[in-house]
């Protein structure tokens, strides 16, 4: 049971890192630009499709990853310029409608470009296989690589937000947008930077999971809800909050998903226990959210309105 706990903790950490990469962009867009972007999951999906395309074209995962980053930035800039820019002054309802429409358009567009069959991305040779953990337990190298890469990105973001001029503007924007604008900062440029940064991070998350999962339309929607939970728990606009929130949500989700059914199996038949566990795990996440919001209504690191 201890072994299982350790493995699930690692799985939770890996999922948390992914959620963080997606949530970091979302929380910035939400906190600084005050835009609810339901299409953020689309960027995650696009990242996976981009690396599938580039990796297939170049025959190398690493070249694919390298080419994916500028392409992701380009996608971010285009979406910001074409769609997001028009939504800054609109109500939240308009934003929800427009970005939800974008989700559908993007999913159909992806089907038209890449077809309906899922794509797969070959795993780089040096990261395939597994390392011994404890006793007979092994853990896939690639999942460890995701954790390491995600932590590196988190550290980079931490430095950028706390010690650079752009980071200062981001923090200022998240705290009080109108003052930043009044001080003569080009707010449009700041918004474009924020959105593109978020897009690149989400695409990176998509690219990193591509070798583990098959690349498919709709993969973005499945993570979007959890990501919103992360943003709300962490506090809107806070990168630090997004990081802690993501790890918390993912660990609760993965541990609940396994230990829930195991405990339930003691009292129910396996099919019902499995089903209950599936229902239970996401519920735990929302219960966690409710408890945190009850204690801290603005989230762990959010500023009270």
């Amino acid at each position: 049971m201890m072994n299982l706990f350790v493995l699930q903790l690692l799985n939770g950490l890996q999922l948390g890192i992914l959620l963080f990469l997606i949530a970091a962009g979302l929380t910035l867009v939400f906190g600084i630009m005050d835009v609810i972007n339901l299409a953020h999951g689309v960027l995650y999906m696009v990242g996976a499709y981009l690396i599938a395309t580039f990796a297939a074209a170049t025959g190398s995962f690493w070249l694919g990853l390298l080419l994916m980053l500028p392409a992701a930035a380009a996608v971010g800039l285009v979406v910001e310029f074409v769609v997001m820019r028009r939504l800054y002054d609109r109500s939240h309802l308009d934003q929800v409608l427009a970005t939800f429409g974008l989700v559908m358009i993007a999913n159909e567009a992806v089907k038209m470009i890449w077809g309906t069959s899922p794509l797969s991305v070959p795993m780089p040779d040096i990261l395939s296989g597994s390392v011994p953990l404890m006793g007979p337990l092994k853990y896939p190298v690639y999942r460890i690589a995701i954790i390491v890469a995600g932590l590196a990105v988190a550290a980079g973001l931490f430095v950028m937000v706390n010690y650079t001029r752009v980071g200062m503007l981001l923090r200022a924007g998240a705290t009080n947008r109108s003052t930043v604008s009044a001080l003569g900062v080009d707010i449009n440029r700041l918004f474009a930077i924020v959105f593109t940064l978020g897009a690149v991070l989400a695409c990176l998350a998509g690219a990193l999971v591509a070798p583990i999962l098959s690349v498919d339309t709709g993969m973005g929607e499945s993570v979007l809800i959890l990501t919103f939970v992360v943003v709300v728990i962490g506090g809107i606009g806070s990168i630090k909050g997004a990081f802690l929130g993501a790890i918390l949500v993912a660990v609760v989700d993965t541990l609940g998903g396994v230990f829930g059914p195991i405990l339930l199996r003691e009292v129910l038949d396996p099919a019902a226990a499995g089903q209950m566990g599936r229902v239970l795990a996401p519920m735990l996440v929302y219960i966690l959210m409710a408890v945190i919001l009850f204690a801290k209504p603005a989230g762990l690191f959010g500023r009270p309105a």
Partner: protein
Amino acid sequence: MNHKIKLLASTLLTVGLTAPAFAQDVPAAANDDVLKIGLVYTLSGPPAALGEQARDGFLLAAESLGDIGGMKTEIIIVDDEGRPDLAADKARELVQRDNVDFVVGPIFSNILMAIVQPVTSTGTILISTNAGTSTLAGDSCNPNFFTTSYQNDQNHEVMGAYAQSQGYQNVFLMAPNYQAGKDSLAGFKHSYTGATAGEVFTELGQLDFSSELAQIAAFQPDAVFTFMPGGMGVNLVKQYSQAGLTEIPFLSAFTVDETTLPATQDAAVGMLGGANWAPDMENEANKTFVDGYIAKYNAVPGTYAMQAYDAAQLIDSAVKKLGGDLTDRDALRAAIHEADFDSPRGDFSFGANNFPVQDFYLVEAVKREDGMYGTSVKEKIFDDYVDNYAAKCEM
């Protein structure tokens, strides 16, 4: 007056009762001279590869047969998108608007359960080329429903019998949480009496198996038995070998097959499965089928393709027997039941419940001589095997 009303009422009642019964027995489609066949397969989303194989297998047979049953043939292909509600609507359209004579498909049991009633209640013949739900083999068997595949439990029973013969004491069981998944584990346990290390039902369409693999690693069972068709299987097999679990024997059905091997390749080689056929079986009909399929689609066919290929051959044989006259429905059903064609799998006949009586094998994933991946027969497990539900069927 009162008398007249009674007469009128009883006449209306008689007409009202017999008219639909008549309509049920001979669908409008039977009266034209075109043989219309509707294919209902899942052609989008992660399981699309299965539907595509089945469709291609059917079309390959249709192409080599020319006019199926000697009649002008029209084939209508619809995508159920894996959604039972949509499948039921599309099946109704096929039967009521397009007037098809036969509906062939689907891949998944939940889709089959959704289309059985809309199709067969009009008297149209439904031929499943994959899904073989236990209810349709037993209590709810249906004279207008045939299957060229198997009863869902059977391939799993093959694996159960194999696990039993290997003397495994605790096996970890895993299947998606839907009817076929439950049938799968029931089938395995039908012929395996040892203990289970764990029994997990996953979400249908789940792609990340890290939690389940963690449980397998922690429990260290004698073997794993699973049923994960399509994209789920691809992800599971890759993640299984990435997690370094390959020392634990991996038994499966519909998980490691010709639809998933192109994606899993070496990660799956050596994994064992149960099947009613493998592409390397040696007989004339199989050689024609496999060579034709590889030449046309440049891929190794799987059971999905083979069973759909047989459905086309089955329709052809039955319609030819009747000389294209489909109005005598009893004669049509009897002609189909004779199954007078050469199946690539060898022995094939229909049991009393319109499910096949056939042999089952242990198959192993191999890299073939042509460089492609496929399954290969290792040993015969069951001979002329009848499913466990046939006895419950009364038609």
